C-alpha cells in the first residue's frame, strides 16, 4: 500500500516537475525536458535504493549508523569548502557528481534519523537523563543543524530539528527537557530571524505581503494567485499561467501552487489526502514495528515527510511564514527525492520485518522472530 502511494506520488511529481519546469528549461537550457530528465534519473536511483533497502532487515542500519553519521557530517563540511561545494542563489548546498549534483543535507536528514533512532533505542534508560540523554542529543542535533545553517538552509535545519526532537519526545524524553528544547528553539529562531534580513523579510511578507506586492511580498502573493485562480477544478493539467516566471521556484518549492492552479482544490486536497494516507499507513508500521529502533525509524521517516509537506503547503497557503522547503516527492530536487525514496525503502523494511497485526502470522511461520517482538513490547513499556 505504501509502495503504491509512493509510486503514485512519484509519477504525479514527475508530471508536475515537467509541467512547471519546461518553460524555464527552454529559457535557460533550450531544453523543455531538462529538469524532468534529471528528476527522472534521480527517481530511478531512488527507486533502486528503495527496492534494495526494503529487501534487507533494517537491523543492519543500527550498526552502520555512526558511519552514516560520519559520512553525513563530512558531506556537510565538504559542501562549505569553496571548490567542492557549488554555490547557487547565494547558498552553498550542492556537491556535484559528474553530470548530477546533490545536496548532502538531504542525505544528512536520513542519516540523522537513523542515527538518532539507533541512539535512542539503545539508551532507553538514559533518555530522561540530563547528562546522558539531553546533552548528547542537543550536541548531536546541534552540530548537524548548525552545519546546515551555515550553507545556509534554514528550512532543512528546521525539518532536521523538528524531526529529531519529535523522536526524542516519542522515545520518552523528559517533558522539562523538551520544554527547554522549545525554549532553545524559540531563542535560536529569533536570533536567526534577526541576524539575516532575508529571514526577517519572510516574516514581513507573511504579515503584510500586500504592502509591497512587487518586492518582499511578491513571492507570497504570486503563490496565492496561482493557488487561488485554480478554484475548485483548476485550469486544467498543464494550464498553469503562474508557472511562466511569476512563481519563483515554480518547479521546486512552489510546485504545490502550480498543482493547485492546474488541478484546483480537488487536486490539492487530493494530494494532501494521499500524504495523509501515507502517514496513516506509516503509523500502522510504527505500531507494528518489531522493536523500538524500527518504531523510531518509521516515526522519523513519517515526521520528515509530514513536516516538510505541512511546512511547504503551509507557507504556500500563507498559513505560516514561508520557508524554503521542497514538497516531498513532488518538488524538483533529485537528491531529496532519492533520499526520500531510500527512506521509504527503510520504512517498508520496518513494515516487512514487523510483528504487528498484519504480519505477525507470517513472521512467526516464516522466520520465527517472536522473541524480538516481546523485547519491543518491553521497550515500549519502559518508555512509558
Amino acid at each position, binding site marked *: 500500500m505504501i509502495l503504491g502511494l509512493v509510486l503514485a506520488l512519484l509519477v504525479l511529481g514527475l508530471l508536475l516537475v515537467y509541467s512547471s519546469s519546461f518553460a524555464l528549461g527552454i529559457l535557460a537550457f533550450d531544453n523543455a525536458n531538462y529538469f524532468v530528465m534529471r528528476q527522472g534519473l534521480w527517481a530511478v536511483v531512488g527507486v533502486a535504493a528503495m527496492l534494495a533497502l526494503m529487501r534487507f532487515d533494517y537491523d543492519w542500519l543500527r550498526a552502520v549508523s555512526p558511519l552514516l553519521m560520519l559520512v553525513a557530517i563530512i558531506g556537510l563540511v565538504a559542501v562549505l569548502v569553496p571548490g567542492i561545494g557549488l554555490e547557487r542563489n547565494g547558498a552553498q548546498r550542492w556537491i556535484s557528481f559528474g553530470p548530477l549534483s546533490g545536496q548532502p543535507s538531504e542525505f544528512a536528514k536520513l542519516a540523522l534519523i537513523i542515527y538518532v533512532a539507533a541512539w535512542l533505542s539503545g539508551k532507553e534508560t538514559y533518555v530522561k537523563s540530563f547528562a546522558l540523554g539531553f546533552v548528547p542529543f542537543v550536541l548531536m542535533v546541534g552540530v548537524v543543524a548548525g552545519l546546515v545553517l551555515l550553507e545556509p538552509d534554514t528550512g532543512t535545519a528546521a525539518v532536521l530539528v523538528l524531526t529529531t526532537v519529535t523522536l526524542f519526545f516519542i522515545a520518552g524524553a523528559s517533558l522539562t527537557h523538551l520544554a527547554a528544547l522549545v525554549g532553545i528553539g524559540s531563542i535560536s529562531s529569533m536570533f536567526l530571524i534577526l541576524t539575516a534580513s532575508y529571514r526577517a523579510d519572510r516574516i514581513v511578507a507573511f504579515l503584510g505581503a500586500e504592502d509591497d506586492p512587487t518586492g518582499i511580498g511578491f513571492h507570497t502573493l504570486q503563490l496565492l494567485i496561482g493557488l487561488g485562480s485554480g478554484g475548485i477544478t483548476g485550469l486544467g493539467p498543464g494550464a498553469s499561467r503562474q508557472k511562466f516566471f511569476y512563481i519563483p521556484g515554480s518547479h521546486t518549492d512552489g510546485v504545490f501552487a502550480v498543482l*493547485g492552479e492546474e488541478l484546483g482544490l480537488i487536486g490539492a486536497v487530493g494530494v494532501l489526502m494521499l500524504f495523509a494516507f501515507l502517514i496513516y499507513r506509516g503509523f500502522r508500521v510504527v505500531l507494528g514495528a518489531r522493536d523500538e529502533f524500527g518504531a523510531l525509524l518509521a516515526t522519523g521517516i513519517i515526521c520528515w515527510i509530514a513536516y516538510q509537506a505541512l511546512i511547504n*503547503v503551509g507557507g504556500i497557503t500563507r498559513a505560516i511564514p514561508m520557508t524554503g522547503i521542497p514538497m516531498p516527492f513532488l518538488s524538483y530536487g533529485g537528491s531529496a527525492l532519492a533520499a526520500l525514496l531510500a527512506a521509504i525503502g527503510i520504512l517498508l523494511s520496518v513494515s516487512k520485518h514487523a510483528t504487528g497485526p498484519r504480519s505477525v502470522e507470517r513472521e512467526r511461520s516464516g522466520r520465527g522472530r517472536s522473541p524480538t517482538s516481546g523485547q519491543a513490547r518491553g521497550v515500549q513499556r519502559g518508555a512509558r
Partner: protein
Amino acid sequence: MARSSHRLTWRLLFLILLLLVGMAGLVARLVHVQVIDHEYYAAQAAEEHLHRTVVREPRGAILDRNGYPLATTTAAFDVYVDPRSWADPATAFAGAATLAPILGRGAGDLLDAVLAFENGDYLAARAVSAYAGLQLLELAPVGVKLVETGVRAYPESDLASSLLGFIGLDQVGLAGIEAAFDIELGGVPGEVYFERDGLGNPIPFGSRLGTEPVAGGDIRLTIDRYVQRLVERSLAEAVERHEATGGSIIVMNPNTGAVLAVASQPAYLLSELDLTDEEDTGRYRPRAVTDVYPPGSVMKTITMAAAIDRGLVTPGTTYVDNGRAEVEGGEPILNWDFSAHGTTTMTELLQFSLNTGAVWLSRLLGTDAFYEYIDRFGFRQPTNSGLGGEPSALMRLPSDDDWYPVDLATNSYGQGLSVTPLHMITAVSALVNGGLLMRPYLVEEVSGPVGRRAYEPVVVRRAVAEQTSRTLVQMMNAVVDGTPGHLGQVAGYSVGGKTGTSTFADSAETVASFVGFAPVADPQMIVLIKIDGPQDSPLGGVVAAPIFSELAPQILSYLGVSPDGSALIERAP
C-alpha cells in the same frame, strides 16, 4: 489489533493529533484561498497576465513617382531591462557591462538607472538598429528584453522633409503625407489582449483576444526625386541670395494636376527632427500647400481670362492708361512704377503689368462676373490635393458686410486677397491646359495587401473655354518671350509666364513671384516660384523669374521635352 493498541502511547497520539490538526488547517486554508477567495485571485491573475497591446503591421513605404523610396521602415528593437532580474549585484554588473557598449551608454549610468527604476521594465534604449538587436539576442544578457519595432528610414535623406512629414513614437503619422495618408500607410492597428509570462512574453497557449491589425501599403507619389532635389536646391540658394524669410516652389504637370515637386521654406530637416522642441511645431507644415499669400499681378492673368472668356476684350483691344484709376471710397490706384502708357493693348497690359488696366477690366466684367470666375478657378475652396490643412482663399466677397467696391479693384490685380501657392498654380494650369481646372494631386498610387488604387487626374470643372486658354497662352508667351530682357526667358524653349510683386496686408513684407510654363505649343510643365521678403529687390521679375529661367531647361530636358527653338535662340548673337 490488541498488540498494536498497547504501543499507541499518549506521546504518539499527541503527534498524530498534531499532524491531523495541521492537515485540517491546510485543507481549511486551501478552501479559503481556492474557493472563497477564488474570484479575487482570479481577477488578480487576469490583471497580471492580460496585457493590452496595440499591434501594427510594418508601415508602408513612400516612393517617388518612379518607385524610388523616400521613406521606408526598417526593423529595430526597443531594449528593456527588468530591474528584478538585476537584483543580484554580480548579474547586474555583468548585464550592464554587456549591454552598455552596444547601446553606447556608460555601464555605471545604465546600472544606476535600471536599479532606480521601480515601475516594471526600464526602457534602456529606443529603436536600436537591427544589427545591435541581433548582437543582444546573441549575447542574451540576463533580464534584457527586446521588443521588435520599426524605425522610419529616409534613403534620400532630408529630401522633401516637409512634404513627407514624420511619425510619432506610437507609429502614427503626425505631419505631411505621413499624417494625411496615415491609414493608407500604417493600416489599421489591431488591439490585442494576450496573456504574458512573468518576463512579458506571450504565453504559448495563452488566450489572445482582440482585433488583428490590417496592413497598410506603399504610397507612390507624383513627386520626382530628381526634380524635387533641383527645386529644393534652387529655393535654398535663392532664399540665401536674396536674404529672404522664406519661399515656395511648385512644379506641376498642367494637364493632369500631378505635382512633380513641392518645396517651401522655412522648413525642417528629418535628420534634425526634435519633437520635444515645442517651438518648432510651426515648421512642420508644407507651407506651399497650407500658407496663403497675396498673389499680386499673377492674378491679372485670371482677370484677363475672365474678360476674354466673356467676349468683352481680345488681345488687341485697347484702353487708355492715364496712370491712375479712381476708385469709389478709396485712394486712386496707381501703376507699380507710377507710369502712364496712354493707349494700350490687352497684351501690353499684361506685359507692363498695369494695375490700372486690371481695374479697368474688372469694371468691364462687373462684380458678379469677376467673382464668378474667382469661383470657377477654384479659389473659394481648398484644392483638395489630399494633404491636410489646406485653406480656401482669404478674401471678402460682395455678399460680405465689409466688402467695398475697392476690394473688386484691388482683387483684380491680386491684392486684398490671399491664396495658397497651390491655388495659384492650379488656376494658371487651367489657363494653359485648354481651360480645365484640374484637382492637384500628390499620390499616384497606393498599393498594399488590400489592393492597389491608382489616382487618376480629376477635372474639377471647365474654368474657361478652350479658345480663351489658347489666347492666354499666346499672351503669356508674349509677356515673357515678347519682352526683350525678360529674366524669365529660357534658353531653347518657348515659355509663357507672369510675374507678381505684392505686399502682405498685415506686414510690410513683400512677395516676389513668377508663374511660368513651357513649351508654349503644348505646355508640359508649369512652375510657381515665390520668394518672401527678398532684401535686394521686391520685384517678381528680378527675384523669381531668373529662378524659373534656370530651373525650366533642366526639368524640361529631364522630362524629355525637346527644345522647340524659341525666338530667343534665333535672336541670340
